[in-house]
């Protein structure tokens, strides 16, 4: 089933068109990767899905983005808070708050008053377990998260995002600050998480896209050039430009 569908999605930063009539469909409980050279609009596309671009002055968006069949760009769609709870985001740099591990995870819940105090322990535990950090951190829950390793920080950020129980996880180059080993571990984690979440990952790393994703989209200068099963795209690309890019003849 399609979790996210875009119809003729275009986006302008002032006079500059960063997305050009994008049409695609992300399938539920699969990992979809978006690849393409720097500046082609990958992050911009990702940030449409939780409407983070709203923060930037002069952004104009056209077209439709359906998430669970509701058009999130529609003028009547005003519940940004609900949208962002449903669509979690993991950023490029691991960026926990300078608070304890525990406080980081319950950060969103606490503000939303979603849970009783007594349930918090349980949620912290479940969130840490689902990112496979519980065993490492169960005795360090009240230590400052800034003392963790980069990989642990990134896992913690994922835990923080899933603590508010989203359906979708957007990941913008989640491994680019990590070493190859940590990268593989995060990829392993993503395979686990896709049982419960629809994952969209932006990456510069072609091997990562090939290894870790089920579907893949290739973008160039704001256009979606090709969208297919990852295996198809990496073994038999239909477009010459895709082929050039994945064989390394492009930037």
């Amino acid at each position, binding site marked *: 089933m399609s979790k996210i569908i875009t119809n003729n999605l275009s986006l302008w930063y002032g006079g500059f068109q960063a997305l050009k009539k994008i049409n695609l469909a992300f399938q539920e409980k699969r990992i979809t990767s978006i690849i393409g050279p720097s500046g082609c609009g990958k992050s911009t596309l990702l940030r449409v899905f939780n409407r983070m671009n709203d923060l930037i002055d002069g952004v104009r968006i056209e077209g439709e983005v359906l998430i669970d069949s509701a058009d999130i760009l529609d003028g009547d769609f005003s519940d940004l808070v609900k949208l962002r709870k449903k669509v979690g985001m993991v950023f490029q740099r691991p960026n926990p708050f300078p608070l304890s591990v525990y406080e980081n995870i319950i950060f969103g819940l606490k503000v939303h008053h979603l849970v009783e105090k007594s349930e918090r322990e349980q949620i912290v535990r479940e969130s840490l377990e689902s990112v496979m950090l519980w065993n490492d951190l169960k005795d360090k829950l009240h230590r400052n998260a800034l003392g963790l390793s980069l990989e642990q920080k990134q896992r913690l950020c994922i835990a*923080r995002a899933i603590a508010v129980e989203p359906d979708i996880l957007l990941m913008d180059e989640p491994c680019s600050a990590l070493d190859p080993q940590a990268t593989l571990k995060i990829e392993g984690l993503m395979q686990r998480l896709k049982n419960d979440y629809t994952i969209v990952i932006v990456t510069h790393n072609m091997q990562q896209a090939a290894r870790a994703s089920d579907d893949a989209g290739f973008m160039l200068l704001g256009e979606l050039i090709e969208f297919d099963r990852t295996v198809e795209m990496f073994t038999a690309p239909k477009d010459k430009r895709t082929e050039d890019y994945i064989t390394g003849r492009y930037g």
Partner: protein
Amino acid sequence: MRTTTKQKIAFSVLFLSTLMVILPVVFVLGTIIKNGWQGISWEFLTSMPRDGMRQGGIYPAIVGTVYLVSLSIVFSLPIGVMAAIYLNEYARDNLLTRLIRLAIVNLAGVSSVVYGLFGLALFVTFMKFGVSILSGALTLAIMNLPVIITASRESLANVPYQFREVSLSLGLSRWQTIRHSVLPFAIPGILTGAILSLARAAGETAPILFTVAAFYLPKLPASIFDQAMALPYHLYIISTQIPNIAVKTRYATAMVLVGISFTMNIFAVIIRSRLRKKKKW
């Protein structure tokens, strides 16, 4: 000239300049302490002045200054922080906000006697608060606002942009983001700025001259609508208006005044380093 020689010259010049900054301060403090410490006693700090202020203590002046400073922060801190939040988090970067910013920077440089006259016109006369602690505290608050706004804005701007992004991505509204993901991390800087500005306010004479300060009062103020004595003004009076007063009394009064500012500064440093340790990124 050889590079090492040049290096040495540059180093010496820079070092001397630093010395020039520090030396006068050391000299002033030294003079005050040398002449004043004999005048400091428990009685001096806690009793009313007697005998045309030549004897007794400076208790009412200390109390007056504490009242003024405390009340002024009650007005200036909330307003200053809210203005800073508006300017840093909400206001768009357009001509109007740039003008406001420019005005704030310039207001911070306006001479304090101008604030005194402004306070006299607005609070004492127009709003009919009379010469009172309220008028004085409001005048000090107005004088401090630009400093507090600037310091608060800087600390807000120092909170990484990512904190706001993460917060919004977790579904917090803009106000919740400011309240939970920005403000807590800006507080050390805001408090430091506020305390430093207060330390300055505690020592100013001009803003309180027309708005609150009394030459001599036989008893302590009973409400914020009373006049009060204040340390800087008291020091001015005993130094210029009262003949045959002991040198040590004057210097001891100066020492108390400097001591209050100094304590507040130390306090600011401690608060900052404490909170920083907890909320550092």
